[in-house]
């Protein structure tokens, strides 16, 4: 216990007094804390989040505007055409359908709306349709519009930035050393390059992780270092929700307290980012969802996900009210 107090005190001093990032060795010491120390770790992460980012929580709605039929083989994804998934492919939604979903998002108090397509990257037809619909959503709803369209060329990124896409999602998903075990149809480096292009052209980068695919703790630490390198504004933190028909369908969920540990570690490693609750939180954290909000999270996806359902938005908004966490718009602090 004395060792735990020392490790936490050292981390607190670094992040709160010296206002510097933790070193890899300091993070490794936190990973090794015993399970009974996780609440104390979470408490420190909450304090760091308040000091670096303030009390506001950003709320977002997401939409799968083109579902399934993806040529990539991401082992966790039910939208790959390479797996016998029950998810049926559907074409790009009409602008009216996307607008209707955006209006749903406004009604639950969100400030952010992300349009997601299951593609390797956008072709010209997709680019034109996205560039047509983004201004419509912005004008009619006042929402900030984010997109997730896969791998981008610089030209495509420039056009999206000029077209009003303020944030672009492209997850690293996992550590470079583990990535080939999960995806073979594109490389981790291709993902990294798109992340760099997104930042270069002036969009905010939303670059997240998916935990629970069989990666080691050391690989999670590796991923944290790699996330630091791409300097994201936002990091959506997903936990694997094993999907029927996918290669990872047999994996077990991350245990709730272990999920809390890693939420806290993400905050302590990336103190200034928007750290968003994303997919898998309901089934992973179960009754600990409010605890995640006091472990470093300062943003969440409300309502449903791309192909699965979330809990009712009212439950999340009540949780935020009970925690006295105001809903607000965030931008990168670090």
């Amino acid at each position, binding site marked *: 216990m004395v060792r735990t107090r020392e490790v936490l005190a050292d981390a607190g001093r670094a992040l709160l007094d010296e206002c510097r990032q933790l070193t890899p060795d300091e993070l490794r010491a936190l990973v090794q804390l015993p399970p009974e120390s996780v609440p104390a770790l979470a408490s420190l992460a909450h304090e760091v989040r308040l000091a670096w980012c303030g009390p506001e929580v950003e709320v977002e*709605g*997401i*939409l*799968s505007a083109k*579902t399934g039929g993806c040529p990539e083989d991401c082992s966790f994804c039910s939208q790959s055409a390479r797996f016998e998934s*029950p*998810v*049926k492919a*559907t074409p790009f*939604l009409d602008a009216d*359908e996307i607008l*209707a*979903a955006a209006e*749903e*998002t406004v*009604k*639950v108090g*969100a400030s952010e709306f992300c349009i997601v397509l299951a593609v390797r990257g956008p072709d010209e037809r997709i680019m034109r349709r996205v560039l047509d619909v983004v201004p419509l959503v912005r004008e009619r709803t006042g929402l900030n519009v984010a997109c997730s369209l896969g791998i981008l060329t610089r030209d495509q990124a420039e056009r999206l930035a000029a077209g009003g896409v303020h944030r672009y999602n492209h997850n690293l998903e996992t550590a470079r050393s583990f990535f080939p075990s999960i995806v073979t149809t594109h490389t981790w480096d291709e993902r990294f390059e798109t992340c760099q292009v997104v930042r270069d052209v002036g969009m905010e980068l939303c670059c997240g992780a998916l935990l629970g695919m069989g990666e080691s703790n050391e690989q999670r630490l590796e991923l944290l270092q790699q996330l630091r390198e791409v300097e994201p504004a936002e990091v959506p933190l997903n936990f694997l*929700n*094993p999907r*029927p028909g996918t290669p990872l369908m047999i994996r077990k969920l991350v245990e709730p307290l272990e999920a809390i540990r890693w939420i806290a570690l993400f905050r302590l490693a990336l103190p200034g980012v928007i750290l968003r609750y994303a997919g898998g939180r*309901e*089934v992973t954290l179960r009754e600990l969802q409010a605890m995640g909000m006091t472990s470093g999270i300062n943003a969440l996806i*409300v*309502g*449903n*996900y*791309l*192909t*699965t*359902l*979330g*809990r009712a*938005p009212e439950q999340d908004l009540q949780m935020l009210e009970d925690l006295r966490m105001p809903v607000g718009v965030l931008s990168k602090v670090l």
Partner: protein
Amino acid sequence: METQFCTGCGSPVSQCAGCAPPLDPARFCAQCGRRLTVQVTPTRVTAKCRDHGVVNPRA
């Protein structure tokens, strides 16, 4: 309408008593076992069967 097929995998209910994970919408028609066209949005979900039209996605 009597449920004859699992909405999680499309198997006859005599072979599968229900395997849909929690928080998953129906993916197969309960009446014919055909794969559904499902659209999830932030606060809604709709499901359509080629033969039976719009069906309850939360079945």
